[in-house]
């Protein structure tokens, strides 16, 4: 098992950490200049208050949270049970396959680590997408939205490549329990990512039709909510399927 080392994983996460830190610092510096308390004239204040009132006037729900946001929170909670059942099935059948190939025969840790990194990176881009539309910056919104879309697409590309590679190695859906549970779990996640990618592309196109505005940033926010959820689920799946195979301490 000498092919499997923790090193690439640690390297990837370190690189990711550094990258995030750099971007966050850059972003913080950028905002620092904007957020200095400005002395506003009375007129300005009135205008801002009027704008606030206009935005909040229509949100007439009991909690003040928009319905659609609540919908997605509850849906994602329900989706947790969906993935929970799949992960349970995977864990129950872990090591129960009667014939190979077994996980370590086919996994390419470096490759999956890179695709994981890209998916996590896309979450960061999603934050920037939302933040730019909340500020009303449509240009930036399009840029980051497309970047997120590309990351998602790249992740899917990696997954397709990985599946092709596994099939080439002789691991099919019906080969053994590992194949069945692996393809079902990662495939379901892949479908979630694909839906997210379509959603991002839809928002990107919709922004050219004038459908994405500062006032409707909530529509981007819920897409972000979904996207982050899909990423978090991948972290769990990556840990359960891939990282647990690493011969740590054993």
């Amino acid at each position, binding site marked *: 098992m000498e092919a499997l080392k923790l090193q690439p994983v640690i390297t990837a996460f370190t690189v990711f950490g550094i990258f995030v830190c750099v971007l966050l610092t850059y972003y913080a510096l950028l905002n620092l200049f904007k957020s200095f308390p400005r002395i506003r004239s009375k007129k300005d204040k009135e205008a801002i208050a009027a704008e606030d009132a206009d935005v909040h006037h229509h949100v007439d729900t009991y909690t003040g949270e928009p*319905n659609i946001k609540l919908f997605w929170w509850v849906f994602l909670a329900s989706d947790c049970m969906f993935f*929970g059942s799949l992960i349970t099935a995977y864990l129950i059948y872990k090591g129960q396959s009667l014939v190979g190939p077994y996980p370590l025969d086919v996994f390419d840790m470096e490759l999956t680590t890179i695709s994981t990194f890209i998916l996590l990176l896309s979450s960061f881009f999603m934050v920037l997408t939302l933040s730019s539309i909340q500020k009303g910056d449509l240009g930036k919104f399009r840029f980051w939205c497309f970047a997120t879309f590309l990351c998602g697409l790249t992740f899917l590309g990696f997954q397709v490549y990985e599946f092709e590679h596994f099939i080439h190695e002789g691991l099919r859906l*019906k080969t053994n329990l590992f194949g069945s549970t692996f393809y079902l779990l990662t495939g379901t996640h892949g479908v979630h990512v694909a839906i997210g990618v379509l959603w991002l592309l839809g928002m990107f196109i919709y922004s050219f039709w004038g459908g994405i505005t500062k006032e409707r940033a909530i529509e981007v926010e819920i897409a972000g909510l979904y996207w982050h959820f899909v990423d978090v689920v991948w972290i769990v799946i990556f840990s359960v399927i891939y990282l647990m195979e690493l011969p740590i301490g054993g």
Partner: protein
Amino acid sequence: MSGHSHKLALPKFLSFLKNRPTKENGLVSWLTTVDHKRIGILYLYTSFFFLFVGGIEALFVRSQLSANDLEIFVGSTYNQLVTMHATTMIFLAIMPLAAAFFNFMIPLQIGARDVAFPRLNAFSYFMYLAGGIVLNASWFMGGASDAGWFAYAPLTSATYSPTHGVDFWILGLILTGISSTVAAINFIVTIINMRAPGMTLMKMPVFSWMAFVTAFLLAFALPVITIALIILFMDRNYGTTFFQTAAGGDPILWQHLFWVFGHPEVYIIVLPAFGIVSEIIPVFSRKPLFGYKLVVLSGAAIGFMGFTVWSHHMFTVGMGPIVNSAFSITTAAIAIPTGVKIFNWILTLWNGKIKFSVPMMYSTALVFLFMVGGFSGLMHGAAASDFQQHDTYFVVAHFHYTILGGGLFGFLAGTVYWLPKFFGKIMDEERGRKIFWWIFISFNLTFFPMHFLGTSGMPRRIYTYSSDMEWTALNGFITLASFVLGIALLVFFIEVIKAVKSKNKASADPWDARTLEWSIPSPPPVYNFADLPKIEKIDEFWESKVSNKPIKTLPRDPHGIHMPGKSWMPLITSIGLLIASFGAVYESDLRYIGLGIFLLAYYGWALEGEAEYYLPYPKKGKK
């Protein structure tokens, strides 16, 4: 986000999406409706229909068992009848019956104009209908599923169930599952976000509370069965081996996944009925509900604990004494919050000025019948005792007492109680009483003797027995009683339809009731509340009647009454998924066509937006 007005941003080739259907009457208006009241009525009628279908299946089963060595429905046909009777009753009759009341009553009880997502609500109904069509289509396309309603592996494998029956069953349940999940999330958001100002959660009517708990149960339990069904479908059609022992799989996984869903399902059926009874008993006892907070909290406790008892369906599987003991204890524990409810109802009746109108008769009958079912449940909740009772008619008696006695009786009570609100008509009191006694007596005559059959060893699901088992007399008696019950129920529904067609106009508040839905006309106008209420107390409407002060209202919106726009999209998306399901069963290209239709309509749904229009307010003073 009701009231959020935004213009549609659409390119020219999509501008046709701006033309929303506006018909107020006729078939088109029902197919495009987003009105929660109309959707509630659709649910009500459709579930009555499936109740009828499931009832016929039950009577077929009973005919076969009426005497020893009969050969009316034998072998697979009999198994199909048993399977489809259970599946139809649970997924297509009782659950949607609860959904009918949820739809109609939740917005009225919490003082809202509609549910949070009106189009999604219509989608839920059409998906339920699609599920019902897929499930029952199997009868005409090579036979229904014959693997029992909990479809234990490996009986459902392609080897032992070679027809498409199980495939239809899987897809039908997935469709109804989508319907229920979406509806549940819709109700959760509605209850959290659409309550009238001032109506804190602890001032909400108990029925809405139980609906709230049920919705959470649905949202968390259904994904599990969906996964189980998908896995099963893959085992049958794509060669995986999840439940095949020969390849290292484990059939017990199915049982766990199924019952993790299946036990909360029991409370999904019963809690709405408990909610209805908790509304009716105070009204007809002329007293507030005793221990409102305890009733609510015990309902929530039942919801939580419902997820901790599933393995008591599997005591005889061989999970070992520790697991069995643990689940015996949780099962005994869940009887406590249920008992709390029973005591609260009894104490509500205590010293009340009880008026035995028809809804009250069904409600008190429920308290009694559910106790019978609950006690037998405790008996096989003890693992050692369950080894004797498992898979016998004792269990059949038990769950009919809980699901019919605890569920259906509540819904019958609700039907009579809320019929004035649904249709503006009231049922004939005298005939209603007579029908009640026929139903109540024949119900007990049908199901109580099953306890005896079970204890004398008759297994469930056998299609025949020999005369020397000495089960013939009781079985014949049960069959006779079951036919009486069937006819009594049929008469009940005919009576409902007669009442709807009759001229017995009901007043806005015929029962002198307590909750908000009675403060508006029967049937309610399309916008429900002309002036949205402001709530200060529990039973605000009752308080306003006692103190003779009108309920405080919110200021009127200068634009008019905000209404959600009708839409074709819920229907078209559902048709897409219906076609895709048939395609999936036969592995034909239909599934891609179906998914294509679904996807197109889905984008149409997203792009057409929530659309809204405004109705003028009625004149003040005149409701």
